[in-house]
């Protein structure tokens, strides 16, 4: 067959195959109701974040030119009410989605990179080198997240707050990924094809880059969405504890403000409920996507008839 013989060497066929695999993934994903729901939700939320300037005027974030009166309950004009500065909660949520998503994604990238790297190395190397990476993982695993995050937040006070929050979440949340990746890397290490590669004379770099990494990547990807949801939750919690960036409205800081400014006692339930629900919805959506991806990539989880 002539069509399949062209340019195999340059990997175009392999690339086409990969595309086909992706298409196959998408076909399966489409059939997963939970995953699809999550994806639609996420697309909507992302659209809202991107289109924030169109959906809510930026002046709604200004305190001196706030359109409303202090804590107005939801109305036709302010669907989700206003805060004490008279700013519409909806504007804050819409603009806050940007920060929450950025923090979630950026922290996840950090967490994933560290986690994958350490996990793969811990799984690949035997002896003391693997031991060091493994102990490092263990160690970060036993350090409780929130206290460490709190301590690090103090440490990074010199950085812009948002960056500090991102780094803190990224640096504290990689250990779970590393452990998962290590377990996967170990099973890959036990596969005969790695033995074969070694017998062919492959060095560590070749083994890791050609065999171990490609085989842990799907797991890492499935884990990504779950980590994003954890990161968003973490941002919310850190902000709630007053460690977030109070100058950028994220959902966490909106909630923190509500808490610090006695929204509940003032009866401003809208100030507490709506940002909280936003968090729940977006975290849940990421979870849905993550679980669907996991289901498709890990056949064990597929529902057997």
């Amino acid at each position, binding site marked *: 067959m002539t069509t399949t013989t062209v340019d195999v060497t340059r990997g175009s066929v392999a690339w086409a195959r990969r595309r086909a695999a992706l298409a196959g993934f998408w076909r399966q994903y489409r059939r997963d109701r939970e995953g699809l729901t999550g994806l639609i939700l996420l697309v909507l939320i992302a659209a809202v974040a991107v289109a924030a300037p169109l959906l809510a005027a930026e002046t709604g974030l200004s305190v001196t030119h706030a359109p409303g009166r202090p804590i107005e309950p939801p109305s036709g004009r302010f669907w989700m009410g206003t805060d004490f500065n008279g700013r519409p909660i909806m504007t804050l949520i819409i603009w806050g989605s940007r920060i929450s998503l950025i923090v979630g994604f950026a922290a996840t990238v950090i967490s994933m990179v560290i986690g994958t790297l350490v996990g793969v190395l811990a799984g690949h190397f035997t002896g003391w080198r693997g031991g060091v990476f493994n102990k490092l993982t263990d*160690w970060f695993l036993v*350090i409780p997240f929130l*206290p460490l995050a709190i*301590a690090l937040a103090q440490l990074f006070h010199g950085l812009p707050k948002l960056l500090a929050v991102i780094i803190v979440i990224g640096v504290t949340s990689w250990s779970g990924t590393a452990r998962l990746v290590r377990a996967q890397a170990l099973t890959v290490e036990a596969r005969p094809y790695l033995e074969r590669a070694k017998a062919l004379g492959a060095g560590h770099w070749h083994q890791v880059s050609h065999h171990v990494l490609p085989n842990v990547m799907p797991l890492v990807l499935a884990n990504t969405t779950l980590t994003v949801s954890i990161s968003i939750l973490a941002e919310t919690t850190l902000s709630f504890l007053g460690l977030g960036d109070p100058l950028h409205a994220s959902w966490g800081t909106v909630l923190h403000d509500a808490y610090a400014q006695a929204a509940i006692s003032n009866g401003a339930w809208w100030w*507490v409920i709506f940002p*909280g629900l936003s*968090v729940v919805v977006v975290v849940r959506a990421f*979870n849905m996507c993550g679980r669907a991806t996991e289901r498709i990539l890990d056949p064990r989880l597929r529902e*057997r008839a």
Partner: protein
Amino acid sequence: MSTAQRTGGGAARRRLRALTPRYVAGKVVGAAVLLLFVTIFNYFLFRVMPGDPAKTFAPRGRNDDPAALQAMRERMGQGKPWWEKFLLYLDNLAHGELEHSYSQHQPVVDAIAERFWPTVLLSGTALVLAAVIGMWLGARAGWRHGSRFDRATSATSLTWYSVPEWWLGLILIIVFASKSGLGLFPVSGMSDPRSDLPYWLDVAHHMVLPVTALTVVYIAQYTLVMRSSIIDERYADYLAAARAKGLRDDQVRNRHALRNALLPSLTQLFLSLGFVVSGAITIETVFSWPGLGLLSEQALSGPDYPLLEGVFLVFSAAVIVMNLIADLIYPLIDPRVRAA
């Protein structure tokens, strides 16, 4: 047959023998090394923190001369070379002493000791409840993988899992505690100095809301672990064998699948038991529960580094100790681990 007796005893002994001194020593040493690492990391982490605690804890608004400040700094042990301070720290630690809390004006050890049990009570109750309910739900859901019960359970527990627990706490206060809500439960604290209930009942009454918030949020992780381990076991050959023996479906699940699936969940349980003491920072803040979480939150507004450091050490130590216990118990309950 007499052999049964003889070997019965033998098997029990074998079980204990699985904990060979070498195994135990290995695990203990591993935990100790980890603890040492954490201690060192901990120590230096809090030493590179910015700020001048002497100034922080000298009340602003009162005039003070630089000499007095210097005196305060010296009282706080600043000025000595770092290694000398570190050795001193280790020496004190070996005697069960930590530093002196700036904000609580008492030895960090005492401050932590006072707050330790309330936290264990609160988070421990929530954790046990969550584990029991979660595992039960997870086992049922996994066994009926794909059923409506499974989907409902997974969906519900995952939704709760997406809820920040402190936010749930706030909502619970609005609905169940506030005057404008149902007002059924006290809004905060661990006991009411004016209550006419017996002390334990008063505490239980105060626990209802925070425990509910924690439990509901924690359940998911147990449900999911239990569910997936049951699913893993679901198609194991020995279950087919059990079915072939003529066991009823529920017998197969309870006698065979459950115990095997329980093992991964137990690891999870122990790991999270370790996190008990640190897990409730936000909930303790929201409900003013006088535990370690609240103490860390208090230490944070200073920040009171010696106290933060101590709390941090306790948090990590709890996880390490719980992991150690899990490691030691594991071979006793899973015969397979003994071979390794």
